[in-house]
């Protein structure tokens, strides 16, 4: 646990192409940013070099937080471990049958997601529990031993166990775990109730199967990383970013790597909550526009919305993650004219290889980035801070050929059309994310980051009537920065179905206490001092008969005789907010109990900027350029500013462009950007 003021905090975010390294001096608040290719050798070199630039020894590094995509990649590339599954007799095909839905309903050749464990490695044992957890048929232990023999013979070394109703009673799964440990100590074992103690057997099976599938690979990777860091003199614990936006120690992560799968967008989401809190913005939408996709999340009062279930390539996961919606549109999205003459953008992307036409790496498809370049919004001489050469002439040529020509438009209209299509598409998606949660986008600020976010944010905001855009410091490395603000976090859930009015408080407290005991052990293991521990109870509730539940904070007030009424009234209120209506006279039920254990990490503060006047210093103005704005047409002398040279209090009236190595911010006419004390830019619509 970092004390908060002595050393350096390091955030390491590995992306597909680049790794971002952020080093924050806890004492001065100085921030150093590095980008390095994501190849393993360069990566280590980069981390070390990054740290060496600010400190001569690793012993001044107080905390390293690492966001890893190793587990995700093993899953996406289907390069996981040969995994096996033990399940209740009669149910080995649950994983194959799934929920039997056809997501593409007119597609007569629709295929379901392929199970990660083939049928031959899904073995059944005789045992059965009922929905209350009572034993209907005892576990046949000899059959478990037979499974071991079969797995050994087949070379299956990572084993998932998922029994019917194990969320209600874990005894049979635990016993199978013991037998496996005795008979097959070389194997790693994942028990479903450990990974997700929630009902719905297919979803739980899928969750524990993915865990088993990626676990040995993540384990090796993290062990290797620990060794490397140790060798370099790092003396503290390594923390790993979780999908929930929290961090966990390596030891805990190794048991449940499935909870790191979606950690990619989590850093940015935590950063969104942190920066909006800092700037006193109660409601924020995180808008992270990268090369192939745009991730949207919502933060209210400094808390990122979390979801407790999601899917990855249609494989369900019962693991909490920051509630991020991914839209298939980004800088690399391809613009194309279909056979009937309509202009489309995406969902196909040119990715990093070959990338947009302007990269001159063989790309022939016009992308959003090419359109931005043709319209003067991007500076061809300042890609990655000038480290990458680009060819606007190639963009223009392909744009004429692929879009302008077929549509009989001039080049400018074609490029502007591409941006308009992509901006409105993103705006509709942002709206869907908010209205689905009963929120109105107009009450939010848009926090824009990622390479392309600040370039598109004002146009997207205008479409949604969002009056404020916030471009944080280091928008290009914002995920790595966000990780430094993550608390240690562990989530526990327990499906417990009961009518709210039919359960006594002691029964619930007993269950919460048992979750808290487990959580306390984990925090203990991570050396979190008692005064830094927080346990947050909540319950998933719904009206009797409804399917979708609402997560309701569970009161701590022990001895409150009115606790049921209070809980229900909080539920009605949240239901109304989320769904637009409530029915206070209807009976409610509790579905899941949830406990979030938090180990508070002291938030580092960024150094404040020197104060300047309303007008930026002359040296901040890099020059002028011809830039196209839909409302103005070509604006010949658009001022171009260097972000690093702006001071607190500077105001920039649109049209203007602000450049920095990792990103470009476009301030359209009618908007004004103000630099805050912390260096964030608040761009507001005039009037």
């Amino acid at each position, binding site marked *: 646990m970092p004390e908060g003021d002595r050393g350096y905090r390091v955030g390491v975010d590995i992306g597909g192409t680049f790794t971002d390294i952020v080093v924050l001096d806890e004492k001065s608040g100085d921030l150093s940013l590095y980008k390095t290719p994501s190849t393993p050798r360069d990566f280590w070199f980069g981390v070390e070099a990054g740290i060496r630039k600010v400190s001569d020894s690793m012993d001044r590094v107080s905390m390293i937080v690492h966001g890893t995509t190793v587990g995700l990649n093993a899953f996406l590339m289907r390069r996981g471990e040969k995994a096996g599954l033990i399940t209740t*007799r*009669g*149910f*080995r*095909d*649950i994983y*194959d*049958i799934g929920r*039997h*839905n*056809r*997501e*593409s*309903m*007119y*597609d*007569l*050749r*629709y*295929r*379901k997601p392929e199970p990660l464990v083939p*049928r031959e490695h899904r073995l059944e044992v005789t045992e059965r529990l*009922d*929905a209350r957890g009572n034993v209907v048929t005892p576990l046949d232990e000899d059959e478990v031993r037979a499974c071991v023999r079969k797995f050994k013979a087949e070379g299956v070394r990572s084993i998932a166990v998922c029994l*019917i*109703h194990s*969320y209600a009673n874990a005894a049979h799964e635990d016993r199978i775990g013991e037998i496996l440990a005795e008979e097959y100590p070389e194997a790693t074992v994942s028990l479903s109730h450990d990974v997700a103690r929630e*009902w719905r057997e297919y*979803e739980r099976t899928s969750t524990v199967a993915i865990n088993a599938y990626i676990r040995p690979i993540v384990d090796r990777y993290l062990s290797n990383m620990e060794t490397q860091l140790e060798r370099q003199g790092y003396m503290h614990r390594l923390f790993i970013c979780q999908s929930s936006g929290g961090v966990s120690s390596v030891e805990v992560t190794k048991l449940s790597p499935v909870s790191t799968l979606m950690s990619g967008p989590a850093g940015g989401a935590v950063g969104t909550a942190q920066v909006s809190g800092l700037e006193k913005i109660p409601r924020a939408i995180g808008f992270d526009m990268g090369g192939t996709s745009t991730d949207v999340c919502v933060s209210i009062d400094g808390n990122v919305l979390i979801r407790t279930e999601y899917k990855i390539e249609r494989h369900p996961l019962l693991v909490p993650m920051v509630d991020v919606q991914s839209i298939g549109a980004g800088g690399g999205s391809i613009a194309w004219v*279909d*056979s*009937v*003459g*309509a*202009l489309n953008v995406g969902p196909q992307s040119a990715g990093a290889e070959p990338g947009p036409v302007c990269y001159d790496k063989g790309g022939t498809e016009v992308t959003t980035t090419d359109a931005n370049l043709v319209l003067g919004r991007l500076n061809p001489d300042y890609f990655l801070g000038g480290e990458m050469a680009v060819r606007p002439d190639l963009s223009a040529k392909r744009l004429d050929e692929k879009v302008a020509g077929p*549509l009989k*438009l001039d080049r400018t*209209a074609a490029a*502007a*059309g591409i941006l*308009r*299509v992509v901006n*409105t*598409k993103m705006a509709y998606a942002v*709206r*869907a994310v908010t*209205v*689905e949660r*009963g929120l109105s986008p107009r009450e939010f600020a848009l926090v824009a980051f990622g390479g392309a976010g600040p370039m598109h944010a004002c146009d997207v905001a205008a479409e949604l009537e969002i009056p404020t855009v916030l471009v944080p410091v280091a928008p290009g490395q914002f995920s790595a920065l966000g990780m430094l603000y993550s608390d240690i976090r562990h989530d526990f859930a327990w499906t417990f*179905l009961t009518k709210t009015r039919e359960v006594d408080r002691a029964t619930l407290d007993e269950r919460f206490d048992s979750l808290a005991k487990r959580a306390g052990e984990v925090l203990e293991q991570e050396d979190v001092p008692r005064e830094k521990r927080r346990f947050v109870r909540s319950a998933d509730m719904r*009206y009797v*008969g*409804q*399917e*979708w539940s609402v997560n309701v904070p569970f009161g701590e007030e022990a001895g409150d005789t009115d606790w049921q009424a209070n809980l229900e009234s909080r539920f009605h209120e949240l239901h109304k907010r*989320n*769904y*637009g*209506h409530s*029915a206070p006279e209807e009976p409610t039920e509790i579905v899941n109990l949830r406990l979030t254990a938090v180990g508070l990490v002291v938030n580092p503060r960024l150094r404040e900027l020197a104060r300047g006047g309303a007008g930026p210093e002359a040296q901040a103005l890099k020059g002028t350029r011809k830039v196209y704005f839909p409302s103005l047409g070509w604006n010949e002398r658009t001022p171009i500013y260097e972000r690093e040279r702006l001071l607190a209090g500077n105001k920039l009236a649109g049209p203007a462009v602000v450049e920095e190595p990792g990103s470009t911010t476009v301030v359209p006419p009618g908007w004004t950007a103000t630099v805050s004390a912390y260096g964030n830019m608040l761009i507001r619509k005039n009037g």
Partner: protein
Amino acid sequence: MARGRDLVTTEVVSNYLVAVADEMKRTVVRTAMSPVIYEVLDFSTGVFDRRGRLVAQTAGLAIFLGTLDWAVQAVLKKFGDDLHPGDVILTNDPYEGGGTHLNDVSVVAPVFDAGRLRGFVASRAHWMDIGGQVPLSVMTNATEIHQEGLLLPVVKAYERGRPNRQLIDTLTANIRQPETWKGDFGAQLAACHVGRRRLAELLARYGPEVVEDCIDATLDATERLTRERLEAMPDGRYRGVDFLDSDTVTGSPVRVEVAIEKSGADVTLDFTGSAPATKSSYNLTYCGLVSGCRVLLRAITDPHGPTNDGCFRPLTVKAPPGTVVNATKPSPVAMYGEVARRAIDAAWRALSEVIPQGLPAGHFGTICGQCMAGWDDRLAPSRYTSFSAPNGGGWGATPDRDGESALVCVSNGDTRNTPVEIIEARNPLMVTRYELRTDSGGPGKYRGGLGTTLEFLVETGGQYAATFAAGRAERAAFGLHGGRDGVTNRVTVTRDGKTIAGLGRSTAFLLEKGDLVTVESGGGGGWGDPRERDPRAIAEDVRLGYVSPEAAAGDYEWGTGP
């Protein structure tokens, strides 16, 4: 082209309209009270222009694709100028009002700009109950529509924003579980409200003329795309026949016949030759028939593209009134979906020879659902519970691979099963197995997909009954090009060691404690001669247990050859 419309605006407006339909869908899912809506997604939402043409639609069920615009047009036909801001109209009339069966109720709201009618938003959802002779209003054996529930003949539920209390009180009095119904109806109203507001915002922003031009351009573009795909298919006249399992009244199979005339970029489906309407709930009205044809047309032209009126302009559907596929009042229609699937299958079979990459062989082709309801006497006092869900089955093999197993039928889409753990927590049932059904896939060079076996042990001694809707119990999914048929759907109850078979169409069959209910969905048809199947694939099937060694020996001559 009018001033203001350009290619980019067209794309922006058409994306917006799809987003409106989508937001309406999200509203319904978020606010509905019944699992059949939020879980089974038995509903759809759509946006329409002022002439009632479908502009954008979302649907959870494929079969809902082609019916909502009929409901909107029925509203136009009946009310014409008598439509006002704040009006909300209900219809479930299968004969005149764009309905399918009585449970599916369309809620239609006109949208105005500057006092002029400019479009409609609508949603259709399966109401859990609409009155009639049995709970849930699902039955197989009605003899006239009146037994099936309330028919709403295109009536206003709201007039100029004010609720029509007479109608709402009448519905409340006739519908079982009116509280749940109010929640679901509320969800539909909320969706209309959201849709109306969003569409009005769009009209205000771009002006009605520009929006209408954009809509025209979008529909025309979709039409061109559909026609392009149709033109790529060989012209000709193709015949297809399929049969419903024997009629409960006469005992003979019910013929569904189609002649498809594909000429250039147009296609006509003529169902002349189909049997007269049955005297049971197995009938389809014209609107449902067209809907079924539209599902197939989407599947063979552009299954992943947006759906609007333009998709359907090349399609003509003919059927003599009074037939099982164009039933007239008062023919009952509760099981319309089963007839629609036979109509789709007849056309599917007809086209299987001529579609460029080939349609898959036939699939298990039925909802294969169970509705189980009654009293759980394990609780004190005993409690009424109900559970209804469809089952997935085997799909047909294609010219390049085996068919998929355990998927819902063609008329359904994103419809999910109920997890075993939830079934048992809520119902006096224990699921003893839920697995793929060995040997159910039709043999072929490529094998049909497998159905499932779902088995329940009844644990209550209270009054408890089940209605089953499993068609294709007599005629299995068809194989193609030498591939053999799959195995039929089957529902049985085992009581005191004796098996009661043939329950696939029973209404409110009384169950007893200790009964074992086995619902087996059928397998898909095979593709190509089984003797051409790769021996390694046969060995793999046997090893994995998809095919038993005995069946492999019989169907594929496996292990018996030289």
